[in-house]
């Protein structure tokens, strides 16, 4: 395996730099996916049937905490990549771990929110608005869940092997994914929650 040392470690081999480029292309597809889900949501947003509307349902408190957790975790995964570039394995693992824990916290609050909605009689089956809300949020949440599992797998590999071209490449790609989920959440926060609360 030829490693080009003039580049950052995660870009070092030809395969690894292709992987990163490929993941950007994949994120393009993910943007198309979430764009479609947002479109569906905007089409159905005023179709409450007999169910509650967004302003009746949403509470800003938990959503703010979710936002705070996810945005901070995006920062800490950036710190992890920074530590990785300097070969600080322990610092990298710590930041990586904090990121995943915040992701877990986010998921905990999101699930609690869902349970609350359902208790208030707002289920997937109630109205088109709620169907699109649950599926949009759920798709994002499923991405975070998958990211948590994926990130945990990468952490185990980091602990076993340390920082090498393979683990560095995986970690960097994971960070791209995590930032992407953050961006999607910003749209959800603004156009689903804030707009819904108005």
């Amino acid at each position, binding site marked *: 395996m030829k490693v080009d040392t003039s580049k950052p470690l995660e870009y070092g081999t030809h395969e690894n730099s*292709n992987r990163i480029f*490929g993941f950007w292309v994949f994120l393009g597809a993910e943007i198309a*996916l979430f764009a479609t889900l947002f479109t569906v949501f905007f*089409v159905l947003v005023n179709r409450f049937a007999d169910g509650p509307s967004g302003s009746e349902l949403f509470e800003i408190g938990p959503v703010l905490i979710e936002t705070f957790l996810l945005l901070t975790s995006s920062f800490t995964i950036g710190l992890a990549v920074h530590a990785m570039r300097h070969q600080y394995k322990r610092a990298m693992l710590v930041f990586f771990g904090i990121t995943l824990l915040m992701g877990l916290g986010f998921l905990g609050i999101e699930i609690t929110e869902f349970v609350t909605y359902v208790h208030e009689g707002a289920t997937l089956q109630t109205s088109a608005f709620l169907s699109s809300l649950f*599926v949009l949020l759920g798709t994002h949440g499923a991405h975070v869940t998958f990211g948590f599992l994926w990130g945990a797998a990468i952490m185990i590999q980091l602990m076993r092997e340390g920082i090498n071209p393979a683990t560095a490449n995986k970690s960097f790609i994971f960070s791209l994914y995590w930032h992407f989920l953050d961006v999607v959440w910003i749209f959800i926060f603004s156009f689903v929650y804030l707009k819904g609360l108005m």
Partner: protein
Amino acid sequence: MNFDLEKFKVHGEPLIYGAMISIALVSIGIVVGLTVFRKWGWLWREWLTTVDHKRIGVMYILAALLMLFRGGIDALMMRLQTAAPDMKFLDAQHYNEVFTTHGLIMILFMAMPFIIGLMNVVVPLQIGARDVAFPRLNAVSFWLFFFGAMLLNISFVIGGSPDAGWSAYFPLASLEFSPTVGNNYYSLALQISGIGTLMTGVNFIVTILKMRAPGMKLMRMPMFTWSVLITNVIIVFAFPVLTVALALMMFDRLFGSQFFTMANGGMDMLWANLFWVWGHPEVYIVILPAFGIYSEIIATFSKKNLYGYTSMVASMLIISLLSFIVWAHHFYTMGQGVLVNGFFSITTMAIAVPTGVKIFNWLFTLRKGRISFTTPMLYSLAFIPIFTIGGVTGVMLAMASADYMYHNTMFLVAHFHYVLIPGAVFAVIAGFHYWFPKVFGFRLNERIGKHAFWWIIISFNVAFFPLFILGLKGMTRRMYTYSAETGFGPLNMISFAGALGLAIGFVILVYNIYWSTRYMPRDENGDPWDARTLEWATHSPIPEYNFAVVPKVKSRDPFWAMKHDKQPLFEEPITKIHMPSNTGKPFVLGVVFFFLGFFLVFSMWIPAIVAGVGVLIVLAAMSFERDHGFYIPADKVIKTEKKLGGGTV
């Protein structure tokens, strides 16, 4: 969990029992054959675990040929059922299932994989690469496609096929109006193979942009590679829309959500929009690579370089952009108003312009060329006039106000068969004949090939031209029978005769594969057609590493330049070659996805969760694996090259 055996059964039809028995017999035959000839190990090592783009391509094409016959039998059944008034061959339900699976299979499990198969075989060779960017992901793509296709195919005998048309419009496709599991199969089988296709899209974009041989600038790429690049960009942006649409459909049908329902705020039209936002680009996903194939073949057999290379590329780019803003022309009659219809009318008609540019470029390539009428060339030449009929009738349909007359008539059916069969099917057959010697080292017999060609070309017109007239006379599509008073009988009978002729043509085509395998002389120099592009610069059959030395490209049509202008292609000495190692995990992933899909179709939640966890476990196993491939030492490469003769040594 309510476990009810009744759900799995399909009742009543002798034809379905026949299908069950034939599926069982074929499966037993395959198992017995593999065991008797001790081929299980060979099958596993050489094919099921392969990551070689050529072998994956061959598997795609084999699967596509199988599906061509499955979809073709559907077509014959439909044509027989409508051949005369008041036929009793199929009942209404069975007819609905047959036309639905015919459409699904022909588009998604025949045309797409055939094209992706050719893409796999040809593109890495055309750009002078040793493999695709992500060989293992490529295997994942194939096995997801394959098991998605299998999941749809078993629906016929277990639980019932989808029956709401290949476009599965709501509310017809909802649980209320389609209570069988058929449309569950639709949502899950397409989802699984769709994920595979999306991965193909990512893989080939990276391959083409990052793996080209030194000197092959974008504007030196062969036209087929260009068409594949543009196609894959369309895949990456269109398939997520299908993913979402299918997921919402699944939620509506399995979990009672209200996306496309009639009550509780749902919007049935939303499905039609989502479906066609994917569905129209999908048409170009199958047709742009076909344009690429024709460009290669017409240039090769005219002994000229392609006329208007730059305008070819530009027109494909324009088509790819327009393909995303024409979707509403599929439902002008659903009442979205004059302004919307007007917009989509204009964009649709605009597509005729870049397409026309391409037609003229092919004609000018032919002009003053030294044309040799080989089988692939015959298909390409037949394509031009027939496709033009399809295109011109498309412009007729594009006019929204006129479309109120044509909408959902046989005129439409005739139109899209006139576009898709010359546009996609003739192209893949032409490409199949053209690249066959590259993969297997011998040509298909020309005489038998031309027999098949004339059967197919004449029968195609006999089968589909009457449908234009039937449509104008008022026969709607998807009606399973009609009375004698309508007067539709004779033309339908002619069409049935054409369908039979088409079937004969395809049988001859397959017979040609068998005959040529046994009797055709082996091809000596790897360049049987005196072709122009890089794939012909290596041996036939292709060694696993493709090129012993990575070629250096200095012009368009570099192989032609090497042969005729003495431009050297292979200058470096042979060194060791890095290869990816085989893996069984993509196959296992496909199997697990198959079960996940199957359990979800029947709402068997606990097994579905187990299978879902299984998917995660396989993915984790892939993540934890460290496999750096292996090297073929230089002396072994030299030995192989000497044995194959010619080429690079």
